[in-house]
């Protein structure tokens, strides 16, 4: 397919997906905007009201509730008994998660509160386990809003933004794309990890640019994998099937 055919075909696909908007869309928008001005009313009123309510709640708690300061006896503050120190959460064992392995693309959308604009990768770890090899991507401040995992034949990846191609060890590839993340603020480890493991042969940074991180994975055998999100600390785990 030539370049022109590709463009034309792509636009045909776009046309097929989108069609035309309803003829009443401009009227809908006009009407919605016309009825929206009330929402533009000064937000400071709501802000002040919220502030007053918060002050009342905090004040009430302060004088009669749990925020009341500890009583002073004979000039000595009675201090509460020390609460047990929470133990650091241990990293989960690398046991299989029970999720089935898949050999297809996957798009993972993190739910929950809106994340900060950029999530920092702090560690990349690999390890071999019975039946699978594991790549763990650890984050410091949340999870990326969107992570995509796609499989490909061969291990040739295009580095971005340079456009230079790189070929990893193994026969097939897995590309992990994390939007809204970076690999250089909190991470100082290697950006090309040759594991020597049976399934996951190599992990290499393909892109770390403008808030997008891409990791190329070179895999021996069929690129079947499963993914898991873990918390405390936040981690994205990719297990590559070896048997």
């Amino acid at each position, binding site marked *: 397919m030539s370049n022109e055919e*590709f463009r034309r075909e792509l*636009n045909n696909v776009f046309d097929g*997906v989108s069609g035309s908007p309803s003829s009443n869309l*401009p009227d*809908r*928008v006009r009407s919605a905007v*016309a009825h929206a001005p009330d929402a533009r009313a000064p937000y400071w009123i709501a802000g002040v009201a919220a502030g007053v309510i918060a002050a009342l709640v905090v004040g009430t708690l302060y004088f009669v509730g749990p925020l009341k300061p500890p009583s002073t006896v004979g000039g000595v503050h009675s201090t509460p008994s020390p609460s047990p120190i929470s133990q650091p959460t241990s990293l989960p064992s690398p046991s299989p998660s029970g999720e089935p392995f898949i050999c297809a693309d996957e798009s993972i*959308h993190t739910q929950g509160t809106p994340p900060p604009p950029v999530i920092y990768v702090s560690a990349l770890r690999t390890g071999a386990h019975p039946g699978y090899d594991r790549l763990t991507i650890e984050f410091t401040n949340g999870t990326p809003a969107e992570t995509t995992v796609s499989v490909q034949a061969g291990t040739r990846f295009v580095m*971005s933004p340079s456009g230079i191609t790189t070929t990893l060890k193994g026969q097939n590839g897995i590309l992990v794309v994390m*939007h809204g993340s970076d690999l250089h603020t909190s991470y100082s480890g290697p950006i090309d990890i040759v594991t020597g493991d049976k399934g996951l042969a190599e992990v290499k940074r393909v892109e770390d640019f403008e808030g997008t991180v891409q990791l190329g994975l070179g895999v021996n055998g069929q690129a079947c994998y499963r993914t898991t999100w873990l918390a405390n600390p936040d981690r994205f785990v990719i297990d590559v099937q070896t048997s």
Partner: protein
Amino acid sequence: MSAALIEQRPQTLARAVAGDADSFSRLLEPLLGQAYRLAAVMLDDRSAAEDAVQEAAIKAWRKVEQLRGDASSVRPWFLSIVANESRMARRRRWFSVIKLADVRTPAAEPDEVRSDLHQALLRLTPEERLPLVLHFYLDLPLEELARTLGVSPAAAKSRVYRAARRLRDDLTIEEVF
């Protein structure tokens, strides 16, 4: 767009920024078709796309005072709001993990190529579809495309190329731009 309309736009923009809802609607009207197509491709749902455009228009109206620049800034500003609204609509609608079937077919016949292209497009994430729509479908100049994405022109170029390569892996950057 006629020359008369172009001349009127700065005044319409000024009145819209000053809080005139009718001027604001007139400012958006020429952009609604493109906004709808952008949302429709991102959401793959025509009805949801119209809802997203309507919601985006309301949000744009609520923060029209933040609009900076001249009349040429309106399109990337509004399209970026539409893209954000489409992302939010998608997140509201989607389950936390979407698994898509592998539709890779190594040796495709011409008819199947068309089908594959369609399926490959739908397999892209909204973030990957967005630069493709802006570049190939809405035909935005690179500078405007970058402003819509909120990135530098070099990064915008990279995103378009990267997404296009996911549809056809033998594309060169010269063929895309």
